[in-house]
């Protein structure tokens, strides 16, 4: 799927994450390329979400988490003491598994981020909101009810609203944690189309349990597994086509063909 030259956007070096004394992921080294979709697959509990959330320091919210190793965003370590966590989160946005619109109007949901960064002018905000909603393929469905609550939308619409909210602050990377698992097949398809479109503007990392989905939307795939100590580790990382047609590891082949996991 991939031809033009690759730029490395994120690189992890021997990344381990601990919840208290429990090691959730162990020594993960992986590269994530700009304007590509990278899928994270693997059995439940192997640390995909943990890995994803460590890429924008959302794990900081869980008490007693510790991180070893490095996460480089454009070659700067996001866990370096001098790094401003707000800046990291502005540059690396996230969409959650369950749609989580804020309890406010559709407009305010999307304008929430830009307002945080000091944009106050109504006309500017309106422009950002329209552009973001168009970007999330939601504009036509909500343009007449921007003042209605975001909670009054359908699940699929809510998830696209959350994507609009995320792209409104123009991040460089978008993390998605099983963004379609709470949605019906048609809503899922729309999200997948959207991901392919967003790829032109953003670098995307997506966790999914759905092999077909990984094959459909991603350019690269990282397969995680759980070790004997229950710590997740990276088994294989490669172009998605190769992972699904000619994996190097036996474990990968067994997983994608459904023989375990």
């Amino acid at each position, binding site marked *: 799927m991939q031809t033009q030259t690759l730029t490395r956007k994120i690189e992890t070096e021997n990344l381990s994450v601990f919840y208290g004394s429990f090691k959730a992921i162990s020594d993960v080294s992986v590269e994530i390329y700009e304007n590509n979709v990278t899928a994270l697959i693997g059995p439940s509990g192997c640390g995909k979400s943990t890995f994803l959330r460590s890429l*924008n320091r*959302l794990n900081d*919210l869980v*008490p007693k988490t510790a991180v070893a190793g490095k996460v480089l965003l454009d070659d700067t370590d996001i866990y370096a003491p001098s790094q401003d966590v*707000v*800046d990291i*989160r*502005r540059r690396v*946005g*996230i969409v*959650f*598994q*369950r749609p*989580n619109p*804020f*309890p*406010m109007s559709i407009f305010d949901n999307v304008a*929430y*981020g830009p307002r*945080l*960064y000091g944009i106050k002018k109504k006309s500017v905000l309106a422009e950002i909101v329209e552009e973001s909603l168009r970007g999330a393929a939601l504009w036509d469905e909500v343009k007449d009810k921007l003042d*209605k*609550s975001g*909670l*009054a939308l359908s699940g699929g619409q809510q998830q696209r609203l*959350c994507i609009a*909210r*995320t792209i409104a*602050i123009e991040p460089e990377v978008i993390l998605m944690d099983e963004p379609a698992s709470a949605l019906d097949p048609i809503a899922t398809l729309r999200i997948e189309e959207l991901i392919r479109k967003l790829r032109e503007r953003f670098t995307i990392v997506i966790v999914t349990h759905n092999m077909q989905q990984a094959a459909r939307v991603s350019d690269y795939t990282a397969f995680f597994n759980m070790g004997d100590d229950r710590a997740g580790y990276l088994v294989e990382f490669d172009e998605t086509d190769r992972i699904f047609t000619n994996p190097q590891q036996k474990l990968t082949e067994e997983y994608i063909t459904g023989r375990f996991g």
Partner: protein
Amino acid sequence: MAQDIFSQVNLQRVYRRRRLTNKIMLGLTGLMLVLALIPLIWIIVYVLIKGGRHINLDFFIHLPQPMGTTGGGILHAIEGSLVMVVLASVFSIPPALLAAFYLTTHESTPLASAIRFSTDLLAGVPSITVGLFGYAVIVLAQKHYSALAGGVVLAIIMLPVVIRSAEEMLKLVPPDLRAGSLALGAPEWKTAIKVVLPAAAEGIITGIMLGVARATGETAPLLFTALGNDNYEIGKMIKQGIEHNQSIFDVLGRIFEQPADALPLTLWKYAQQPYPERVEQSWAVALVLMLFVLSLNILARVWIARRRSALQ
């Protein structure tokens, strides 16, 4: 194999028994519901009958007449209750909400356990003890009883009620909602005000109403702090302020600094009078008190319903 087992049991009998048990339990729960409602309805009807006779406009807009004479109202108690409950809310709700936020965001820190423990202890302190505390700390220091002192002790009584209910409600807010705001780079305080609080608003309001109802009904702590004041009349104090060209702060100061009456306090005092007229009036006070708390609850529910439909 499974078929073999099931061919041996009489399924019809199992089903029949299940239906019967279902009916009995349903009947039992219905009966319990009625039993639980009886005291409530009894109280409401009784107070309505006994107190309703004495309710008229004069009762609401006049101060009490001297003992032994007929007529007069309870304006002093209504206004005193309002002032002290407003004071108590102002003193207790902001710190209670902040404490509840702390408890939900720092669930298992030593300070959180300490707050939880002392909140539980505070909830268990008899209200008369809280009143004595107010007497010792405020009344003795100021050398006079006041609505302010009453407001403070009522605030102490409201505090644990609001903290615990607000904590429960904040806990119900999905963690990803908070994370979603923080992930956009929002600071914690903005996340709390703009996202978490609105998401939990309905439950928190209900909890606040519980606290207000509790404070409105308290008698004992006011005996030592607000004391009672047959001449407590806000309108008069404002008029005096205007006549003497005083600032709004002077007037507010007077409203807060005077001893004040409250509905439950008046009820308690009237009920012990040797004059039948007063005892009769105490039923009317009980009715006003009940309607006051009831209408607060209804207002809160209307607000919640309106907000819900506005969100749809």
